[in-house]
C-alpha cells in the first residue's frame, strides 16, 4: 500500500513539474517570459506585437509573445541567440545566448522606450493601402495618411509630440524620400495613438523645369521620427528615429508629377 502511494506521489510530482510540452527526442523546448525592465511585470498587452527570434548558424525560429510569454515547442539542440522584434515600444538591451537542451524557461526583460509604429496607411480618395498595395499618383500627388500606436515615457500624453514619416525610395541616396507639397500635420489623437497627414506627396525628389523627376515606382521602408513638441519657436528634439518595413507600389500618372 505504501509503495502504491509513493508511486502515485512520484507520478503526480513529475506531472506537476512538467509545465512545458514534451520535446521530441533530440530537440528542446524553451519558454520565454517577457517582462518590462522597469516594472518587472509581464508585457501582456498585444498592442506591441512582440515576436521573439531564436537563431543559430543552422536554424531559426520565431514565436509571438502571447500573454507575456512565448514558447518554442521543438527546437534543435544547440547554441542560440535570442532577439526581439516589436511593432513599437520595447527594446532588447541584453545580449541573450541560449543553450537549448531539454525543457527550460527563461525571463527576458525589455526596456520601454519612446517609440511608435504605423498600423494603417490610407490615401484620400483611394482608401486603405495594405502592405504591398499600390497607390495611384496623379499629377499633384496624393494626401498620405498614417495612423498607429505610440508610447513616450519621456514626453507622454497629452504632450503634442510630432510624428514624421518618409516613404523612402529603394535607393534613397539617389532617388530620395519623395516630395511633400505642403507641411505634414501630425500629433497624438489619444494617449496611445497618433495620426499624420502628408499633403500632395509624390514619389519624386527633384524639380526640373517645373516638374518633379527622379520618381520611383516602389518602396519598401518607412523612415519614422517622433519628436517632442515645438516650443516657443524652437524645434522639437527627436525621441525616436527608426525604420519600419512597409512595401508599396506607385502607379504614376502620365507626365507626372507637378510640385
Amino acid at each position: 500500500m505504501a509503495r502504491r502511494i509513493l508511486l502515485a506521489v512520484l507520478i503526480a510530482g513529475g506531472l506537476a513539474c512538467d509545465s512545458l510540452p514534451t520535446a521530441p527526442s533530440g530537440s528542446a523546448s524553451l519558454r520565454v517570459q517577457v517582462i518590462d525592465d522597469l516594472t518587472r511585470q509581464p508585457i501582456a498587452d498585444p498592442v506591441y506585437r512582440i515576436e521573439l527570434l531564436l537563431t543559430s548558424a543552422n536554424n531559426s525560429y520565431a514565436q509571438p509573445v502571447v500573454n507575456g510569454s512565448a514558447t518554442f515547442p521543438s527546437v534543435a539542440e544547440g547554441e542560440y541567440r535570442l532577439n526581439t522584434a516589436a511593432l513599437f515600444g520595447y527594446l532588447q538591451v541584453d545580449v541573450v545566448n541560449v543553450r537549448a537542451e531539454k525543457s527550460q524557461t527563461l525571463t527576458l526583460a525589455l526596456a520601454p522606450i519612446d517609440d511608435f509604429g504605423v498600423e494603417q496607411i490610407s490615401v484620400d480618395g483611394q482608401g486603405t493601402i495594405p502592405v504591398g498595395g499600390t497607390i495611384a499618383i496623379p499629377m499633384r500627388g496624393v494626401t498620405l495618411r498614417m495612423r498607429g500606436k505610440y508610447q513616450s515615457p519621456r514626453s507622454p500624453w497629452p504632450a503634442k509630440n510630432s510624428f514624421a514619416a518618409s516613404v523612402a525610395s529603394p535607393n534613397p541616396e539617389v532617388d530620395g524620400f519623395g516630395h511633400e507639397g505642403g507641411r505634414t500635420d501630425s500629433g497624438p489623437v489619444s494617449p496611445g495613438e497618433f495620426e499624420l497627414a502628408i499633403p500632395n506627396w509624390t514619389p519624386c525628389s527633384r524639380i526640373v523645369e517645373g516638374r518633379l523627376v527622379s520618381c520611383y515606382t516602389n518602396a519598401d521602408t518607412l523612415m519614422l521620427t517622433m519628436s517632442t513638441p515645438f516650443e516657443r519657436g524652437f524645434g522639437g528634439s527627436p525621441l525616436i528615429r527608426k525604420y519600419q518595413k512597409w512595401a508599396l507600389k506607385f502607379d504614376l500618372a502620365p507626365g507626372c508629377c507637378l510640385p
Partner: protein
Amino acid sequence: MRRWLVLVCVLASACGGDANHTPVTPTPIGLSLPPGAPGDAAAKPDTTRITITTVEIIGPDGVRVTPDRLKITPTAVSYNMRVWIFCPQGLEGPQGSGWNTEILEYQIRKSSTATNTGGAFSGGLRLEVGYTVIEAPLVMTTRPGQERVTTEILRNYAVIARNEFTAVSSE
C-alpha cells in the same frame, strides 16, 4: 543612408553646449581593464547589457575625488570626468544595417539643481567588445552649489545605459 549618418554626426556635434573644452573622444580599451583602472570600473561577471560601470572625477592634481567633495576657488576649477563603459560580446557595433544601428550616441549633461541651467556634450561612438572610456571636462562654478551630471548612451535616441550623480562643490 549615408545622408542620415552625416546628419546625425552634424546634429551631435552641434548639440555640444559647453565651449572652450578639449574634444571628447571615446577610447576603446579592450576586454581587460588596464593597470591603474579603478576597481569599480569592472563590470560584474555575466553582464549582458551595455553598462556605464563608473564615472571617475579626477582633480587638477590627478587624484580621484568623490563628487560630493569638489572644491571651489576664485577661478573655475576644471575637473576631468572619465566615463567607463562596458560592452558585452554581441552588442558591439556595427549591428545590423542602417545609420541607426551602426552608431550609438553619448550625451553628458550638467545642470544646476538651483537654476536648472547647464551645458551638454554629445557625440557618436561605436562600441567595441570590452571597455571604452570617454573623457570629458567637468567645470564647476566659482560658487558653492550642486549640479546634476547625467551621462546617457543612446541607440536611436532610446536610452540604453545611464549614470547620474550630483556634484557638490564647497569652499
